[in-house]
């Protein structure tokens, strides 16, 4: 086939434009890793890897930095948030797919999608102005008077309830990831073939038995992938927790104590870091966070892809 040289030239230009554009993604991810490594090299050289990860020191005045307190805060808030959010999100998904009458399915589905679109700073601000006072006045004292009285659990609820603490931050994080997790779980539930469910009903299974024994096992890959995705999101979330955590570098055993996460430290201290070592340590924290969330997100993607392949068969 004869094509004019001009056509070939345009083709080549368009091809290279699109190719370059798609490789920007790779460029960014490699660029981020290189820049983070490079910027944190000073802190890596000074504190090493294990010492940095296990040290609870964070003292800008003496120039001693460790990541243990912020990693601890990140893990506690994320784990608690997932603990609160998962049952609720799965409950919503079960309700929307199996229980709700048809005319309610659409509106609730849309409401969930819209709520997932609300930016995290709105959740954070609402947490500061509305939730924190409620927590301090009602919920936290109530917890102290009930769960706090149990000897083995009491240490979790010590201290003065201020509302600016690990518990409030976890609750906000949980509220924020509920719509997200619910929508992925719902999509996975919806992939269960109707025939399989109908056969279970035909042999006399109750609705709950169908959900428990047919829908959940069928969609567990998707739900698990969704949970991991929410975990990844929660790990890197900044604004929802920045308002209500207090940026306090310590290992707080009480949930009613102020703490800090990697993201909160970055948001509060980045522009105030006055020494090269301080800034470099903050970059080191960012590197740790980036690697943690990248691994979790990769795991979630692995499960979601596996689920996709299973259903498309």
């Amino acid at each position: 086939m004869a094509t004019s040289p001009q056509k070939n030239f345009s083709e080549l230009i368009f091809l290279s434009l699109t190719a370059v554009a798609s490789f920007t993604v790779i460029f960014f991810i490699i660029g981020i890793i290189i820049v983070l490594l490079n910027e944190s090299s000073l802190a890596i050289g000074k504190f090493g890897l294990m010492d940095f990860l296990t040290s609870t020191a964070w003292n800008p005045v003496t120039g001693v930095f460790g990541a243990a307190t912020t990693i601890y805060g990140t893990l506690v808030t994320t784990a608690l948030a997932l603990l609160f959010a998962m049952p609720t999100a799965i409950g919503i998904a079960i309700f929307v797919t199996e229980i709700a009458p048809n005319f309610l399915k659409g509106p609730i589905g849309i409401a969930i999608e819209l709520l997932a679109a609300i930016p995290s700073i709105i959740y954070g601000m609402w947490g500061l102005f509305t939730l924190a006072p409620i927590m301090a006045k009602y919920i936290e004292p109530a917890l102290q008077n009930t769960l706090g009285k149990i000897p083995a659990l009491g240490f979790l609820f010590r201290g003065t309830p201020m509302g600016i603490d690990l518990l409030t931050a976890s609750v906000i994080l949980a509220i924020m990831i509920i719509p997200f997790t619910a929508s992925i779980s719902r999509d996975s539930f919806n992939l269960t073939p109707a025939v399989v469910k109908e056969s279970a009903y035909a042999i006399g299974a109750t609705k709950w038995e169908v959900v428990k024994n047919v829908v959940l096992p069928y969609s567990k890959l998707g739900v698990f992938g969704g949970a991991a995705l929410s975990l990844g999101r929660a790990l890197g979330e900044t604004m929802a927790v920045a308002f209500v955590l207090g940026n306090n570098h310590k290992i707080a055993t009480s949930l009613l104590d102020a703490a800090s996460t990697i993201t909160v430290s970055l948001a509060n201290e980045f522009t105030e870091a006055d020494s090269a070592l301080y800034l470099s340590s903050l970059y080191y924290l960012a590197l740790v966070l980036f690697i943690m969330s990248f691994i979790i997100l990769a795991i979630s993607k692995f499960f979601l892809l596996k689920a996709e392949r299973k259903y498309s068969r």
Partner: protein
Amino acid sequence: MNIEKKRKIESFIALTLSGLAAATGLFWLLYILSDVIIHGLGALHISLFFNDPAPAGEEGGGLRNAFVGQLMITVAATLIGVPVGILGGTFLAEYARGKKFARIISIISDIMVSVPSIVVGAFIYAILVRPLHHFSGWAGAFALSIIMIPVVLRTTEDMLSLVPWTLREAAFALGAPYYKVIIQVVYRGAATGILTGVLLSIARVAGETAPLLFTSFNNNFFSTDMNRPIASLTVSIFQYAMGPYGSWHTQAWGAALVVTLFILILTIAGRLVLKWRYKQ
């Protein structure tokens, strides 16, 4: 009690619990939304849009600088992010269709969509802010466009893949080169889908705060110079809400309502466009 009754009761309890879970979840979410609307409406005053901030602690003033700054950063980010995202998605869905590395790029984009946005801010700080010795609106726009590109790229890829292959073959048969087929046939077929992706990606970045903290920073004065620090609504909300003054808190609620409404409208528009297209 016979076993059937037990099973029925068990089912009833489990379903009630999940109904309750759904109600709790929706309750908190609606509570947040109504709280933002109630507090925000009280703060929506004409001066919020047309006045610049008053000196700290004084009454009055508005957030005109932040509205303008936010608009400029978002538009700049869109102008950078959307073309790159669409072109990148085109490469994956057309030229590199079915290739292994295209698969890898698309998986990495999916991961990039959820990468902590504050890390992106730190990245841009190191390459665009510190070398130039000052915060700038452009740095903020670049940070947002890095978050935007993977979103647009993935939607474009998915939407182009939905265009039937026979449509391309028909165009090839007329002797059209591939780039013309893509631009004149494939893009047309996928236009609404891509538009939805663009709208949703704008909604996604318009509420981002963390990547702007160390890039565009903040500016208490009215400025349209993208080479200088520039105010944005989200960073202003953070600063005002954490600040000590009642009037700041009120303005933060007002700004929060505007941001929320803007994002919800974009999201709804995106869904309507998609629904309208695929209903036909």
